[in-house]
């Protein structure tokens, strides 16, 4: 008779160990005390939270746009370009926040890997998209390379101001939600919020040259993702 393979014996040994045989301690006094004085808590309802967050953020962005004013050259811009960009910004905003806020069915843990991928894709799409798909319009302001920084500062500031509200709301909703993957989720929150900032700029800023669109409007998404990835993980971690 041949000897059984060590691997099979190892399998059986590992199987026999399992999780049995260890007697855990009883709950300690601190744990017992905090549980005893706790009441009912309102648990998360991810889809509702996403809907509420989207609605509030859009209202806030619309209010900000009303205060700052619509771009003067809106009627002169190609309709397809205006619509396509609006849809793209909206998809970046809702898609990134969806992956950050809504876990898989039956799970508490977030889809942090997909959220991270969404954040990366949003950063790439909105910077390269801006550089590649700028609209030609006689009245569109051109940002000469020398003016890029000067013109860009205002847009970057307004974009990030728009992104502030959804980012803060999402962070509050997800406080202590993530034992792992919090940096990627934070980046997705930032990229999504930055996309809303980009959408607001799309309706406000009259510039439509590739450098400005790619580096400044797209830059709002990148800056949002980076800032949130740096600032939020500690707040989001369980």
């Amino acid at each position, binding site marked *: 008779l041949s000897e059984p393979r060590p691997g099979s014996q190892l399998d059986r040994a590992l199987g026999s160990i399992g999780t*049995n045989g260890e007697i855990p301690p009883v709950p300690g006094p601190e744990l017992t005390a905090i549980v005893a004085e706790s009441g009912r808590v309102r648990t998360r309802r991810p889809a509702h939270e996403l809907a509420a967050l989207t609605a509030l953020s859009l209202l806030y962005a619309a209010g900000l746009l009303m205060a700052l004013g619509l771009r003067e050259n809106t009627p002169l811009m190609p309709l397809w370009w205006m619509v396509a960009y609006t849809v793209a910004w909206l998809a970046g905003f809702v898609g990134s926040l969806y992956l950050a806020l809504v876990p898989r069915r039956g*799970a508490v843990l977030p889809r942090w890997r997909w959220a991270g991928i969404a954040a990366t894709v949003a950063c790439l799409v909105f910077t390269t998209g801006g550089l590649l798909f700028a609209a030609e319009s006689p009245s569109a302001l051109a940002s000469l390379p020398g003016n890029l920084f000067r013109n860009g500062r205002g847009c970057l500031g307004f974009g990030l101001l728009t992104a502030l509200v959804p980012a803060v709301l999402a962070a509050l909703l997800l406080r202590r939600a993530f*034992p792992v993957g919090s940096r990627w989720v934070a980046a997705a929150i930032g990229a999504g919020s930055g996309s809303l900032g980009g959408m607001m700029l799309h309706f406000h800023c009259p510039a439509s040259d590739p450098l400005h669109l790619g580096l400044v409007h797209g830059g709002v998404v990148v800056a949002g993702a980076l800032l949130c990835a740096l600032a939020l993980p500690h707040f989001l971690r369980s």
Partner: protein
Amino acid sequence: VSATDDVELMGRYCDGDTSAFRMLYQEISGPLYSYLLRLCGERATAEDLLQQTFIKLHRARHVYVRGARPLPWLYAIAHRVFIDEMRRRKNLGIVRAPGDLPEVAADITGTATDRADAPVYDPELVRAVLSAVDKLPDGQREALILTKLNGLSIAEAADVVGTTPGAMKLRAHRAYSTLRKLFAEHGVAA
């Protein structure tokens, strides 16, 4: 404990039912304690980390999604608690003690007491396996504990640790290969 029981108990616990918390603790503290004990190798530390895990669960229970399985989430919290403790110790210059290897409770026939239907096993072999597991690199050890000992799927284990399923599969495979090599070298007498 079945997944349905976990879900129901967790829901009642979030509703403020403290008896549901006690039942939940009773049901899931065993696998969590075993996970933490095999990770850190010290009973006192594992007991402390288990308490911290449940305190963190309590503070984060508002983020629970009703109907969701709490156990993978709890494993992830335990993983985070362990990582934070190891970082704290590293900063303080505390070296991990080789000490308390988990023991398998067995009756007079050598069968684990709560697994009377399981095959009779040589306690020496089990001890050798646990000792070998303890010597694996951290990532591989955790992958093996989660998938082979605690019975999580590769995807669940990856979620707990915060890595991709591919990386988790690789770590578990490497850990298993290392163990097999060790046992092939020394010969297995069981």
